[in-house]
């Protein structure tokens, strides 16, 4: 394979991944395509969480609140003004960034375990709002009857269209996340994780850096959240609940923190396990738990870490 210049390598890899995914997409049926879309969207959300967890060292249990807020915003916007893709994405990104901003501002002086619980509390407040504000969010029953997604003359709400959109989003989001990490603010974020006292001494405004990380992460999660209701034509308070935050965290750790693309592997592995195992045995939670434990014991770097070690390239 000809050697590519460094800056073209990541986009080239991404393009090849897209092409590789397009091949089965042409062959697969309705269910598989929607499943793929779901994997990609949740993977993007987990990837945005990686910015916080893997690079910032900020373990947050409120990420579902960001993702879910975007989902609700997109659903409400589409119910009011139709399923225009641009409108939906804008609504989702705005809502996600706003919620992330609130979270980033709230956690100013907190860290580690306290951050975990504080984000959990904020997330659950968001859940209570979604659960009780029946007039706007549909309460416990959620919102149904969403109009199909479209952009001008193109109908994008079908299984194929959704998978394509999700794939495109995943690509763009990963590229954006990579550039964030490579940018000075991303480097400062990692620095704040590794040596907070030294960074503070050097004059970096740590709360501001963390807020920026939250905003970036929120925008990406917001975009993913915006498309999510259209996969199932439904959004409910479950999309805001802390158990989804925990699920995203688990996907991330299984896939491998700090790698960005590992989140997609984790999402695929987790969702595939959960969907396909339960049809065969009642004891499927046991098996899923076993997979977590084995991952931690045998593959602390997650699937991404294991793949990196298996494939030649690392010295």
């Amino acid at each position, binding site marked *: 394979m000809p050697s590519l210049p460094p800056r073209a*390598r990541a986009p080239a890899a991404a393009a090849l991944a897209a092409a590789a995914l397009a091949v089965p997409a042409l062959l697969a049926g309705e269910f598989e395509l929607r499943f793929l879309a779901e994997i990609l969207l949740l993977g993007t959300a987990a990837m945005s969480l990686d910015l916080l967890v893997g690079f910032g060292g900020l373990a947050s249990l409120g990420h579902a609140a960001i993702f879910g807020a975007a989902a609700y915003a997109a659903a409400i916007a589409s119910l009011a003004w139709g399923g225009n893709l641009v409108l939906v994405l804008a609504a989702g990104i705005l809502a996600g960034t706003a919620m992330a901003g609130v979270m980033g501002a709230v956690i100013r002086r907190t860290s580690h375990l306290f951050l975990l619980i504080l984000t959990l509390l904020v997330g659950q407040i968001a859940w209570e709002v979604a659960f009780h504000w029946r007039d706007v969010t549909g309460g416990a*029953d959620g919102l149904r009857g969403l109009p199909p997604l479209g952009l001008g003359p193109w109908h994008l709400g079908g299984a194929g269209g959704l998978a394509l959109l999700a794939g495109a989003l995943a690509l763009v989001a990963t590229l954006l996340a990579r550039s964030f990490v490579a940018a000075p603010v991303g480097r400062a974020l990692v620095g704040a994780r590794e040596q907070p006292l030294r960074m503070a001494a050097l004059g970096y405004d740590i709360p501001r850096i963390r807020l920026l990380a939250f905003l970036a992460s929120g925008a990406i999660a917001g975009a993913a959240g915006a498309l999510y209701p259209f996969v199932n034509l439904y959004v409910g308070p479950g999309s805001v609940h802390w158990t989804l935050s925990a699920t995203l965290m688990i996907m991330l750790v299984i896939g491998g923190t700090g790698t960005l693309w590992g989140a997609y592997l984790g999402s695929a592995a987790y969702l595939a396990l959960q969907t396909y195992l339960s049809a065969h045995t009642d004891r499927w939670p046991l098996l899923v738990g076993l997979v977590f434990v084995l991952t931690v014991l045998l593959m602390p770097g997650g699937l991404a870490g294991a793949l990196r070690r298996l494939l030649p390239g690392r010295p």
Partner: protein
Amino acid sequence: MQDRDRAGHAAAPRRALLGGLAAAALSHPALARPTLAQGAAGARPLRIGMITSLSGPFTALGESMRAGMNLFLAGSGRAVAGRPVEFLVEDDAARPEEGVRRARKLVGQDRVDVLCGVISSGVALALRDVVTEARVPTFLLGSANDLARKAASPYIVRPTKTNWMLGTTAARWTFERISKGRVLTAGSDYAAGREFVGDFAATYRELGGRIDRQLWTPLGSTDFGPLLTAIAAERPEVVYAFFAGSDAVRFLRQWKEYRLAGRVPLVGPGALFDQEDVLPAVGDAALGAVGAFHQSPTAPAAAAFGRAYAATGKPLPGEFSTTGYVCGQVIGAALERAEGDLSDWERARAVLFDRPVDTAFGRMPFDPRNGQAILDIHVNEVRRGADGKMVNTVLHTYEAVRDPGPAA
């Protein structure tokens, strides 16, 4: 940091290619679909897909529903209208997104002919659009009022109650037999709770009664002490309450702990006193309480089912085992009346709704506007049975209660 192989080429593109090929192989329908079992010569197998909760808060209820359906299938020799039955069960963990994914899997990948089940109304409502779009006949068992109204669908048949049916009959009973004023309502603050209490309050007020206070508590409360203390301070003539599952168990036990049991009459939708799910865990805390329910272990129509259920070693059946069984009966009737062929669903539906179906809930006619069953609602009193255990005993039956339907 880019990975490089020995020749110095970037490893990333190769990785992506491998991943893509693997995904392609695994996701191809031919490899992913399970192999179909060969049915009896000539008779195409009937695939029934059930979506129910086998993990999460409704686990016990989901297991009961599955057991009920299995009992029906066993009793009919695992064949319906001459077609052998393949019964697939998927777990929705009471989460709507999960339920929708399972439904799509059953329809798209497993190619079921008929869908059924669902306990959580959230899941049921989320499924409505999916099954209507996929044009799959669905025997949907959630009980939110909207399922018979705004969310009705020509592809959905509902062989079970709506929340309205229970709330309104409880109001009628309370007004006629217990008290015309000084009723206090208490409920879990979520969609079902609001419907159960709201419908009760509306009917009670229409009849001329007066509601004293309406108290709410969050879903999944661990401590009912504050609520019960408030009730004790109010000293109402009767309390109408709705809680489900573990909330019901905790409420009833603490109801007894706070010395309200036996002193203040307690009325509620039957789910609060479910024979299988709640009563065994609360001892005599619910003794004397009155529930409005479409299901009762002492109802005459359920006698045969009750015996069959007991023969499998289980105690008296509750709502969900009976509902699972009834669902099977209705699916069976649908297929028999359509002579084993559901491909023309419009015609099969018309034939199904033409006459009532005989089920363990009694004679069940359907409302052709929304596929909603018209049910007999019993008023059960919790009494001590011959063996000392608590039994929901039928006091009175309101016959042929019909949900107002799409116009409401």
